[in-house]
């Protein structure tokens, strides 16, 4: 589902304006096809850029997007997630993807171990 909440703003989880709706669906498919999910069933997707990098997805260069696990029948919606914990005064908790996500990406052959270790450190690839 394409939501206005995560488009055109400046703050948490804003998709890059240059990404099309099709791109966003591709990010979801990337996660869904390989079952890149956390313990709660939330999916984490990305867009490959060549063999060893990922496209930026968010306005703050986020490279991974999270899609909330939804009950059957409800549409999924997603947003770019921070690479580090961005908790701040008055903010809700803003967790980066758990490490298991990067391990699953390696197991699925999507990224190599060196890239996974960079992402675990909060770095870009």
């Amino acid at each position, binding site marked *: 589902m394409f939501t206005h909440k995560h488009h055109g703003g400046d703050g948490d989880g804003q998709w890059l304006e240059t990404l099309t709706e099709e791109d966003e669906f591709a990010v979801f498919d990337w996660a869904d096809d390989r079952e890149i999910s956390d313990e709660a069933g939330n999916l984490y997707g990305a867009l490959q850029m060549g063999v*060893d990098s990922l496209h930026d997805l968010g306005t*703050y260069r986020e490279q991974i997007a999270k899609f909330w696990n939804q009950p059957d029948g409800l549409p999924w919606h997603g947003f770019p997630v921070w690479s580090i914990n961005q908790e701040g005064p008055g903010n809700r908790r803003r967790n980066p993807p758990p490490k298991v996500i990067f391990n699953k990406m390696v197991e699925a052959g999507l990224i*190599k171990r060196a890239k996974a270790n960079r992402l675990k*450190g909060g770095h870009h690839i």
Partner: protein
Amino acid sequence: MNRLSDLEQFFLIKFPHDFDVCWAGPNPLQTGFCFGSTDGKLLFEDAEGGRSDPRTGTDSKEAINGVARTGTWLGVSTREDVTFHPLEGPPGYATAPYGAHGITATADGYFIAPLGRNGIMAAPTPVDHGAKLKAYSADQAGLYAYRLTILGSQIGAQVIACAARQGGIVAGEFAAGRQSMGLKIATQPGFDAIDICPLEPGTESRAVVALGRDGRISFFQDVLENKKPIMMKFQNVQGVAYRILSSHGDIYLLTSKGLFVLGELAGRFLRKELTGGINTPVRMSLLEAVDANLVDNRWLLVVMPGTVARYDLEVIHQQVLDHLGDAEIQESQMMDGSAPEWEWRDVPAKQLALAR
């Protein structure tokens, strides 16, 4: 067959299978090295190669991305939190629940860490559970504190220079106890600043080089004053840029494809010898790296999965000097004269209280 441009000489540091190394840098306790793992452990190695047992660096068990020391305190950063360990006195530690992209320290007892959208954190020591940590930022879209360095060696006269992604380069004079910090921001459209390093570390020089994610590098004679930095890109430098470091007048560039040495490039910039007719020797080592750091201006540590490659900076520099004129390894740097001018602005820093 190896080419002259290949960096052949390095030593591989190995680790136990249960220590998945992801960070390497100077040993904050004595001469030697320190290593961090993807599950939040630290391992210290002395100059003779003797090692400590792995010890906990952070309760979050996240991957270590920085270690620094100031006085009798050790700071450890991860994408989840920053942990402050006292090296003396009663055991115990304090944790700031803010993710960081790394950590460094000033000469006068502050830990400084880039916190992304939360800005630049300044944590005075001693750090206790009641400490009020502060972060400096500015109300500007795109500003994201990603990697930073401290310039200047004297107490009270230090400058923080930060690569702030699409927000450009942010710099400001930092003085302990001062309630606000004036920031200068330099931006150029399309320049995604992902790292910055001093050209003359340990001196009062404010000369820096910044790295864009696309591999463009930008030299500033004075990060607080320089209006027209020199920007360039090398065709031989391939891959997504990760890290830039400078030692002995050479520039070290780490990318997704490998390690590249741009011989004497920093030295020539500082001596104002960088002109259109000058060629730069480019040497390389193709590898899959995680991160890299300098140690004591003597070693370069390049982290790879399961191992760390240690390069001798003095040996590399001597090789650079020995082959400075060899045609095989030369490249003419592309001066980016067509790039738009950098835009400079003074902005008041917003100070956040990072209450815990």
